[in-house]
């Protein structure tokens, strides 16, 4: 562990410090948005958005190899696909609720397949693994600024509209009778999640974004008394999991993203098992 602390202050390896700052910034998004994803039960939607992102990255890389202008970056491709997927799923969800899971799974598979096809047709070797599982040590200063900006936006929105978000998540029908624009709240949430997924997948990759949006919040849900508490606890857990995972992965020379998710997953499973056993004991007595 001492090696990790030394690396943090060693100016010749700035990427370790960037990874730590990135983990802290990401923890707010994982904690706050993860709590909303969990209580609104839209993890499937977030999963579909994140997997569609691979299609956008593949298309952007493919176009760039065919002489597209420089601004056609993987990040832009990812953003466009994420927002399109978010809007499409929202539209189906609002107009025909019963078709929602079909569309979610269709986009999930189509997005990934598109990505694989485009990457295969892009000259030179592009490793899809780096997009699926990310590399937190490759985070740039620009990524950090973007993340910090999104953190500020999300925090401002949640603090200002907390009661409205809480009501719309708990009982959409009642919130609507009180004049809360529930559809707008839902769309804003889904779009913010789409943008967050695009920024976060550079850290932990497409597959693991979903894990981090659900596991810390799911664990926090076991011992939080309200939505605000769940957001704070999930943020703290994300922080512990990402910094802890980073240190462990550095020490044992393991892929950072995977270690962070395994740590989060282990704690979530331990809490679920503990809760189940406690419930059984209560039922028996």
């Amino acid at each position: 562990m001492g090696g990790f602390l030394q690396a943090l202050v060693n100016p010749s390896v700035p990427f370790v410090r960037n990874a730590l700052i990135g983990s802290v910034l990401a923890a707010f998004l994982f904690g706050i948005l993860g709590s909303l994803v969990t209580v609104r039960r839209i993890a499937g939607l977030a999963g579909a958005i994140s997997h569609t992102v691979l299609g956008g990255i593949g298309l952007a890389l493919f176009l760039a190899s065919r002489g597209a202008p420089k601004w056609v970056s993987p990040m832009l491709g990812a953003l466009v696909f994420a927002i399109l997927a978010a809007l499409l799923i929202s539209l189906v969800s609002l107009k025909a609720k019963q078709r929602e899971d079909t569309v979610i799974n269709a986009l999930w598979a189509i997005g990934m397949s598109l990505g694989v096809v485009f990457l295969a047709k892009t000259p030179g070797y592009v490793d899809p693994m780096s997009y699926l599982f990310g590399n937190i040590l490759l985070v740039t200063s620009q990524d950090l600024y973007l993340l910090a900006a999104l953190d500020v936006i999300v925090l401002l929105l949640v603090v200002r509209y907390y009661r409205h978000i809480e009501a719309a998540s708990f009982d959409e029908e009642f919130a609507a009778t009180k004049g809360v624009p529930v559809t707008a709240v839902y769309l804003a949430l889904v779009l913010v999640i789409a943008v967050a997924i695009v920024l976060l997948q550079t850290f932990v990759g497409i597959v693991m974004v979903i894990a981090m949006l659900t596991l810390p919040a799911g664990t926090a849900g076991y011992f939080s008394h309200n939505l605000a508490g769940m957001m704070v606890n999930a943020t703290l857990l994300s922080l512990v999991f990402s910094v802890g995972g980073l240190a462990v992965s550095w020490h044992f020379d393991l892929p950072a993203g995977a270690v962070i998710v395994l740590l989060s997953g282990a704690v979530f499973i331990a809490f679920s098992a503990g809760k189940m056993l406690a419930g059984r004991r209560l039922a028996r007595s």
Partner: protein
Amino acid sequence: MDHSAPQAQAADEVHLPHAPENVAIWCQNLAFHYREVEVFNSVSFHVHRGEFVALTGKNGAGKSTLLKLIVGLLEPAQGQVLVFGASPRRCIESIGYVPQHTGFDAAFPIRVEEVVGMGRLSGLSPVAKRQKQEDVEWALRQAEVYDLRERPFSALSGGQRRRVLVARALVGHPKLLVLDEPTSNMDADSEKKFYDVLERFKGNTTVLVATHDSDFVSALADTVLCVGQDVDHPHSVHRHAIEQAENVPEDIYGGKVVRVRHDIELPDNACCEGKE
């Protein structure tokens, strides 16, 4: 918010039979359908201020749909719904709604107090904290759930949860309280306690409650409206007579009940005699 201008305008257009502040609900020639499925066709009725109305009808007849039209969650395809002379969306503050809330998620972390606090919301405007606290405490006491205020909502019994939802609807001091089958799946004791809470508001607040039992309704009811009971008119709302019910065991129905005479239809102006 000042809604006097639209109220006056709407009242002029439809010629309400009484002053708009005395007509809690006014439905005129209402039609509604979900895609191709017709639910209502030329439905007209009205409810006076302070009346206690039981809305009966079989499952799927359209009771919930009618309530949603009245609270402004749905828009009629034709005709008009006015609440105190204004469209429901313009009088958010006047309406307290208690939905069925059957899709409640037990994993949602929330305390009773916070559920009730939602009743103070009005659009996207911020909620004044002190005012909110006073109203929330008042509503918690009215619905007899003050002692439960710190408890997680998911830890309550079904009957307690329904009363919490009533408290939430009461927070804004509504003039019209709309409840969607609030006592379904409730035992007789809880049901009695529930109607005891509602009794306090009889006369001052207009109450519209949909009930699952269509032969007997709470004795608090002044009026019974029946949705789609008539085979010849499945998409209609009729006013039916009520009479004292003898020999009905209280432990089955939770409180005093009256019998609904579905065979006696009353004219829509049956309630108007002697009213302003």
